[in-house]
């Protein structure tokens, strides 16, 4: 069967009344939580993960697809109306979008973000449909040497390319990788860093750690620093669509953003952040006349349309390495990978053949979720905006309660609550000192995968380290990793010499994830 037939079957599966309901619940909850200030998609997905445990795997992943895309939509609403991007990938949306909102064009900014997300999401999901099975077929030939190289590339890019300093990025990565080593080593059966705590022998639960770093850390951060500042929300009336003139200005940035977002998201490096920055830079360069004047002043619609499209296209792109290689390249993907694992599913080249119904149901739900979100978001934008007025103490009190209950509910283990609090305090400290969170989460999940492949490569090649560059693929990938480090250093030095602010520096404390 080719992928179109399989996709149609996936639709058949996803369009059943029950599954459609799960998709709807997913997008509503995803948007609802995603819209809350300071909460990015990774945190949304981690917080809502316990809900999906109550249904069977295929329904859970359909709900999951909805949550994933819903959180992306919700995040852009907050960025535009409140200027608090929940993650680095929506920083660019916040810059122009919030300016537009202040200039009285909030409705247009929200509409171009929503429609752009829909266009980009749909095109990129189609690209995923076509590319993923091919890549999975090809990936079967990858050896442990190749996987190790891919993990190195993903880890290097997630920590070096973004954030305020590569040093802090690597520091955060090391924390994550160390945490990933805790537990009984699966290849030799030895205890590592468990300090005599039985619960730790099973390893640090990734979802608990992610919830702690994101939700608890953020809550403590807000409680410590932002308690006194009431949110400055810009009101918006019901949005029904986009005027012709704005569509004319938006459609090219949507397509350009998609063209940047999907491929960059699909290579296991960088996730969604790089393409949104690139898209913003390109739109700003290409701007002429009125748009050029608006950029950075009253807000140019191109600067919202492009990055939003890039962001959503990359969100679909990130699913390519996640589904076909089992590699997570963003913190959201890391949480998704943990979700797969908690269902006993192992994403990788064989997932498409071993669980076709689930994979294609998931992909079909991405299309469906996108349509639901478009329908849901335009008319309901004003309702979402009201959510932002919920006083922060209630909001974050609720989040903390939910994070704790969700953590307890999954394993009924009080020790997990202690882990939640301890790592939450760590997350707070990391925010306080400007350490990015994403490398820690990605390191936590990719570290053990890298280690296993490294050790297997050594076992197969009897301890010969030169084997690590024995395949052409590994050479290319490790070369790219090196290039990424050098490029990020060069760009930083150049930016510093010019005295310019890098886009990363604009990321507020709350967007440290």
């Amino acid at each position: 069967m080719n992928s179109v037939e399989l996709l149609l079957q996936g639709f058949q599966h996803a369009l059943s009344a029950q599954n459609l309901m799960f998709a709807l619940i997913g997008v509503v909850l995803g948007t609802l939580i995603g819209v809350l200030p300071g909460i990015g998609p990774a945190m949304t997905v981690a917080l809502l993960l316990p809900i999906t445990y109550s249904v069977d795997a295929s329904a859970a992943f359909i709900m999951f697809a909805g949550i994933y895309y819903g959180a992306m939509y919700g995040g852009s609403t907050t960025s535009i109306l409140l200027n608090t991007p929940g993650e680095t990938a929506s920083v660019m949306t916040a810059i122009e979008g919030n300016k537009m909102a202040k200039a009285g064009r909030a409705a247009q900014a929200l509409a171009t973000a929503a429609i752009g997300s829909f266009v980009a999401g749909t095109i990129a999901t189609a690209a995923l449909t076509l590319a993923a099975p091919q890549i999975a077929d090809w990936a079967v030939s990858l050896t442990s040497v190749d996987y190790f190289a891919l993990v190195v590339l993903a880890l290097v890019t997630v920590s070096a390319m973004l954030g305020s300093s590569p040093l802090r990025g690597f520091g955060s990565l090391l924390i994550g990788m160390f945490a990933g080593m805790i537990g009984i080593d699966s290849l030799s059966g030895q205890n590592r860093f468990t300090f005599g705590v039985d619960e730790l022998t099973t390893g640090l639960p990734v979802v608990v750690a992610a919830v702690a770093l994101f939700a608890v850390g953020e809550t403590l951060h807000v409680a410590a620093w932002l308690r006194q500042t009431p949110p400055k929300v810009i009101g918006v009336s019901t949005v029904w669509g986009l005027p012709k003139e704005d569509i004319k200005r938006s459609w090219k940035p949507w397509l350009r953003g998609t063209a940047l977002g999907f491929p960059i998201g699909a290579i296991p490096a960088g996730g969604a952040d790089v393409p949104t920055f690139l898209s913003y830079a390109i739109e700003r360069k290409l701007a002429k006349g009125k748009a050029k004047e608006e950029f950075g002043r009253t807000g140019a619609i191109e600067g919202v349309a492009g990055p939003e499209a890039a962001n959503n296209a990359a969100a679909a792109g990130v699913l390519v390495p996640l589904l076909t290689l089992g590699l997570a390249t963003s913190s959201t993907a890391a949480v998704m990978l943990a979700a797969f694992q908690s269902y006993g599913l192992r994403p990788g080249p064989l997932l498409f053949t071993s669980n076709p119904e689930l994979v294609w149901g998931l992909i079909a739900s991405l299309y469906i979720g996108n349509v639901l979100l478009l329908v849901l978001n335009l008319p309901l934008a004003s309702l979402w905006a009201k959510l932002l007025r919920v006083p922060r103490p209630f909001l974050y009190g609720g989040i903390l309660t939910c994070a704790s209950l969700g953590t307890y509910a999954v394993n009924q283990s009080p020790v997990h609550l202690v882990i939640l609090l301890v790592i939450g305090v760590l997350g707070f400290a990391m925010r306080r000192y400007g350490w990015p969170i994403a490398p820690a989460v990605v390191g936590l999940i990719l570290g053990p995968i890298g280690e296993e492949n490294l050790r297997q490569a050594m076992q197969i090649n009897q301890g010969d380290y030169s084997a690590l560059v024995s395949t052409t693929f590994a050479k290319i990938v490790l070369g790219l990793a090196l290039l990424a480090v050098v490029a990020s250093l060069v760009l930083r030095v150049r930016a510093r010499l010019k005295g310019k602010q890098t886009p990363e520096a604009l990321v507020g404390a709350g967007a440290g994830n």
Partner: protein
Amino acid sequence: MLPQLVRRRATRAAALLAAAALLTGCGSGSGSNGGQAAPITGLKIMAPAAPGGGYDQTSRAMQKDLQDTKIASGVQVFNVEGASGTNGLKQLADSKDDNLLMTMGLIMVGGIQTTGSEKTLKDTTPIARLLAESEVLVVPAESPWTTLEGFLESWRQDPKNTPIAGGGAGGSEQILLGLIADQVGIDPGQINYVANSGGGKALEKVLSGEVKAGLNGVSEFKEQIDAGKLRALAVSGDNRSKLLPEVKTLKEQGVGLSFYNWRGVHARPGLSDSDKQKFTDMLTRLHDSEAWKKTLVDNDWEDYFLTGAEYSSFVDSENERARKVLTDIGLVK
């Protein structure tokens, strides 16, 4: 005045909506438990491994069939991950809970040896053996070996340069590989065994061609064997597997051993005889049910039911066989 009031109410509605969403998020994780009164209630089954693995599947199949047949109700399954199940074993050995059962099997027998676990199966009460899976030895389709004999011949010549992939260290595949090596005159200490944390990963290793051969459960490799990507050289059981009827057993091809990756159920140490009888009866009823027969077929499991003293002595003999071969391999000092 009025618009402000309306807005305030809308804000409150939004707050309520958010709170409701958060609460739903909180409430539902615990899954489905708390059924009505039925013969056996409050039963907990521990799967001493990650979700999706053999113990987990066995536990959840038991849960479903026990409930569907009304033999028990409100059965909970939970996972205690950890090297080859010894974490779960430790929890069971320290437990005072009469309603706690743990799925276990050959992999745990090996795991106890390799991890040097303080607790052993002596610290539990054996209830029953339920099912088994045959293992199958495969080579990539493009490899030169078409017969078991041919493969064994090259393996014997250069065991170090013949990496073979299977599941976790000290698990059933490594034990079987050691037994085969011993049987055909290869020093088990020379085996280049590539451990994987799961059958799926072992499969990838064989498909990518980076290992020369792979060992795993028949059901794990069947699909790729049927698709022509892997060539099966032998199955490990006494009889040929129903899933791969063309593939000869080891015995048929002159390697005198039979081997099953079996799974059973144990309870806490010092369980009263009446409770032990209760669980034995429960599992016997389960075993006799149509639902379980269907479960065995659906999961490609072979019926391998055994209870009482016979089962206890079976565990002892398996333990001895595993200990010897793992010592030869060098995993157990």
